[in-house]
């Protein structure tokens, strides 16, 4: 609720500040209402993402009404949110379908009732045009390829890799693994249980899993993780074993960058490579929804490709950037301004 209020306030502020800016091509002349529906809105990543969606929508003056609903991790509520937005006659909705195919029937109904439905990031099943207007995916495979290429650069002779991902069987982790395997040959050995070590993206579980893996494996050359900031609490475990933190290929986060700054001297092997954590995925989805609803020109991209963000070895495209003056739970890779993010996460 607090988050929703904060977002609403933020939206109004942003609408006022950006109304004068140039209208983007995806913003057409027809007036429309837009809703952003989250399956679960309760972490800093989601707060920044939600605020980014609001900021993007505010760029288009044809959007006369903007709504947000948080499913709070409850599939039933997420479905009811979709139904209620459709019943209220909202013209376009951008949906983070956390529950996956469970929300497809509700999306299909809204689509058939004439709402422009744009699910993004999480695959909800179904087909475009039949169940919803457009699905804006995220290329986790590309993330895997980026990590794989970097690993090849820093470790040309091959080595031991430890790959940590979220809950068992999550498709993000399996896609990333496929991406890595497309560039890495047999010289690179994954020492984790197939397909990845399960951490649920929970910092405390990550710490336990990592300490067990470190105890078990004398040689870990690179750790790959798709949620970098969750490693911050776990990495000091290496000191318990009197070993240097190894190279890390992951996604960005301010707390992680600051951790690298603090620990790089004491840990000679600690190299860091990050891809953008992907808050801006929502912007592409909003652009598509707005374009379809207002008669604008849709963007050319249909999949959000997270760009490479930090590389401590080459410094390109960015050196590792720590902003100790800002909260640890913000993402400097996101397009949204740093202080606006700090406001979005309530700090």
């Amino acid at each position, binding site marked *: *609720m*607090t*988050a929703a209020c*904060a977002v609403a306030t933020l939206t109004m502020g942003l609408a006022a500040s950006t109304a004068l800016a140039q209208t983007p091509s995806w913003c057409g002349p027809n007036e429309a209402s837009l809703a952003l529906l989250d399956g679960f*809105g*309760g*972490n*800093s990543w989601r*707060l920044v993402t939600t605020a980014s969606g609001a900021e993007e929508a505010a760029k288009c003056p044809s959007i006369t009404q903007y709504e947000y609903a948080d499913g709070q991790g409850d599939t039933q509520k997420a479905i009811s949110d979709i139904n209620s937005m459709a019943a209220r006659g909202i013209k376009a909705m951008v949906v983070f379908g956390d529950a996956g195919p469970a929300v497809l029937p509700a999306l299909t109904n809204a689509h058939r009732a004439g709402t422009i439905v744009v699910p993004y990031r999480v695959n909800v099943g179904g087909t475009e045009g039949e169940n919803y207007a457009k699905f804006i995916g995220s290329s986790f495979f590309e993330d895997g390829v980026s990590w794989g290429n970097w690993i090849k650069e820093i470790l040309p002779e091959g080595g031991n890799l430890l790959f940590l991902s979220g*809950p*068992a069987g999550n498709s993000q982790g399996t896609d990333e693994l496929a991406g890595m395997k497309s560039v890495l040959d047999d010289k690179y050995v994954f020492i984790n*249980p197939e397909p990845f*070590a*399960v*951490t*649920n993206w*929970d*910092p*405390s*579980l990550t*710490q*336990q*899993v*990592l*300490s*067990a*893996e*470190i*105890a*078990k494996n004398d040689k870990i050359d690179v750790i790959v993780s798709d949620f970098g*900031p*969750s490693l*911050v*609490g776990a990495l*000091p*475990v290496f000191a*318990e*074993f*009197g070993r240097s933190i190894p190279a890390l290929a992951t996604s960005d986060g301010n*707390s992680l960058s600051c951790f690298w700054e603090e620990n790089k001297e004491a840990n000679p092997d600690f190299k860091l490579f990050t891809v953008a954590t992907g808050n801006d995925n929502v912007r592409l989805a909003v652009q598509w929804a707005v374009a379809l609803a207002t008669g604008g020109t849709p963007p050319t991209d249909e999949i959000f490709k997270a760009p490479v963000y930090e590389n401590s070895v080459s410094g390109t495209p960015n050196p590792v950037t720590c902003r100790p003056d800002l*909260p*640890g*739970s913000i993402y400097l890779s996101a397009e949204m301004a740093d202080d606006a993010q700090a406001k979005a*996460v*309530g*700090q």
Partner: protein
Amino acid sequence: MAQYQQIAGQDGSGLDLRSLKPARGFVTVVISTMALVAVCAIFAPSAISAGGLAGSLPFAAIIAIVGLGQMLVVQQGGFDLSLAGGVSLAVVITTHMSGGDDAQLLGSIAFAFGCAVVAGVVNGVLVGVLRLNAIVATIGMNALLYGAVFAVSGGVPRITTPLMSQIAAGKTLGIPNSVLFALGIMLLVSFVLKKTVIGRRFEAIGANPAAAHAAGLKVQLYQAMAYVFAQLHYCVAGILISGITREPTAFQGDSLLLPSVAVVVLAGTSLLGGRGFPISTVIAAFFLNQLSQFALAVGVPFSAQTIIQALALVFGIGVYSLRWKQAATKRALKSKTEETDNEV
């Protein structure tokens, strides 16, 4: 008259039977733990290496502390499902109120303890005084505590202060501080339960509230206080988690409820109330944690952890039930009498 005889009989025979009980619970858990350590040494030496233990012991300490809290409630024949909310609230208060600033750490910890006392008193009044079902009352309290967690944090994790991290994740003489905290709390709980008048009364009330009431003890007060002290334990655990995990989530308590019950049962505390076994509870926490580490070391994924904990719980209940079968049918009769008394 019959009832008097039963109560007298219970006191007499209860002492005899119960003098065996701690030995059995303690022996079971110690032998299981030693067997597990031996199995680890053979099949997964990394799980008991110094580095491996240093990484996992802080989490065993957390389970031990919440287990001791849950034990107090179970001793009174109750259950505290507000554990998850209590731990999570302490985590978010310590990290959010201090905002990474060491100077504000003490204030935020004091506030966390204040909230824990309030939650415990409400639980205690609902269950101890108003006689609500413990599961219903504490599940409601859990929802309220999670409301508070969202109000404080908005669900957003925040980084702990350097001082908290140093205290909770640091070491003294090579032993993780969190383990020292757990051992200290264990000694305190053991001393109070076993060596003070208050503790003896507490256990007597748990064993037979009706008899204790007849003896003139303030049953409601003691039952209510179990919930207050349990919340204080969860609060300590939450504060320690905020230091051990550098950027804890707002839902850190969720994964602790099942282990807390499992260790209490493994330690031999009866789910119907009665004597508590603090030392066995702490050893059981080490056992349970080591079991997870062993499973990880031999390559069972961490996702199987819940199953392992559930199996440990079943094992504990199994051992406990067998003991009940061996006891005379008199005990079953007595427990029936207790239930009827409670209903009246």
